[in-house]
């Protein structure tokens, strides 16, 4: 019981309290503790990522085994993942590893790694394209959803239109001071709303963090006994 419930709550309480106290102690030792804990956090996070990857791989293997609909997609995912991890771990991330330089003598310490080729010529173009694809769907959704049915909806419609048109040369073609109008909207009424929301978000974060540190909020421990 202690290992299952009390210990995790004590760990969260201890670490949370320590990090708050550390913030108010301007001493080199305190700064050292902060950077050490930050490194520890990154290490533990790396292992949690591995669990996530294991879960994804397991799901795709199950799909392939059971030959469910579209199981071929899972083969593509696993192949792409396997090749990327293989070249990434053996070849290096930002600089080539010694293993890669031994296998390919023409690869120099400053050369691009195979992982960077995958990143630049596969991942980046596809990610940018998928995000740019959303422009079409957002425009079509806006066309269907934006109706000046009420005062608030009209305000949303007008602001979105001004900010969209004002950021391109055609805006200046309609009205010479359009960029200044956009700047004013972003700097004053829009900023006011975002500031109000941000104050609320920060207050919420403080309240939730305190609840977790004090052991009132325990949802992160998951269900079960």
């Amino acid at each position, binding site marked *: 019981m202690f*290992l*299952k419930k009390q*210990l*995790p709550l004590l*760990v*969260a*309480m201890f670490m*949370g309290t320590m*990090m*708050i106290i550390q913030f108010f102690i301007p001493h080199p030792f305190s700064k050292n503790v902060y950077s*050490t804990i930050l*490194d*520890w956090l*990154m*290490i*533990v*996070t*790396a*292992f949690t*990522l591995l*669990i996530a*990857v*294991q879960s994804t791989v397991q799901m795709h293997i199950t799909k392939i085994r059971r030959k469910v609909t579209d199981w071929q997609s899972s083969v*593509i*995912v696993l192949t792409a*993942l396997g090749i*990327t991890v293989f070249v990434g*771990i053996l070849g*290096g991330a930002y600089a080539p590893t010694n293993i890669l330089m031994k296998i390919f003598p023409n690869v120099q310490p400053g050369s691009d790694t195979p*992982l960077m080729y*995958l990143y630049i*010529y*596969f*991942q980046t*173009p596809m990610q*940018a394209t998928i995000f*740019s*694809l959303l*422009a079409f769907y957002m*425009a079509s959704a806006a066309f269907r959803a934006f109706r000046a049915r009420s005062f608030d*909806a009209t*305000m949303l419609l007008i*602001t*979105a*239109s001004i*900010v969209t048109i004002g*950021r391109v040369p055609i805006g200046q073609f309609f009205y010479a001071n359009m960029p200044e109008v956009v700047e*004013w909207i972003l700097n*004053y009424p*829009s900023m*006011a*709303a*975002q500031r*109000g929301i941000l*104050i609320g978000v920060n*207050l919420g974060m*403080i309240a939730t*963090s305190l609840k977790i*540190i004090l052991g009132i909020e325990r949802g992160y421990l*998951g269900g079960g006994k």
Partner: protein
Amino acid sequence: MAISTSIWIWIAALLTLSIYSFLYKDNPFYKFSEKILVGISIGYTVSIYFHNTIIAKVWNPLVHDHNFLVIVPLILGLLMFSRLFKGKAYLSRIPIAFVVGTGCGMSIPSSFENLFKQVQGTMPQVFTIGNIIILIGVLSTLIYFFFSVEHKGIIGKVTRVGITFIMIGFGAAFGATIMARISLFIGRIQFLLGDWLGIIS
């Protein structure tokens, strides 16, 4: 300019086109590219974590610098794998509590800092129309999100003003998001017509 002869540019261009083919309808080319993106994204993250964290922060300190303190987060990390064993899955709560507790402890001072910065920015040093708009907008937005009091009477009127400000904020955010997506689209078209086909310089 001429059409590109680089195989990498051709790969990037064909993957870009296969994703744009979704604008017509869902098809095998799009599905193929989508799955490749999923696999490569996960693989890339794993590789970066492996080199930046496992090698740089665990292997090197432990093997080369003999810093045995690293064993503590290593054990905590390994405890995450207890989730794979049914009877011992509860042990993974300890590293989760470590991550959550530390994150909360770090977020409280930084949230207070952000909060005070926002409050300070709201306080007008000079009474200009813009500063007064910000003051009214922030207060009315905050009152709109305050649900402990019923939104009736004077509070109701103030919340109406708050909703108007929120709508302007959302409209501006929506417009900015559309423009960000459009600029990505322009970037992809420039890549296809310039880097790949060599039609534009």
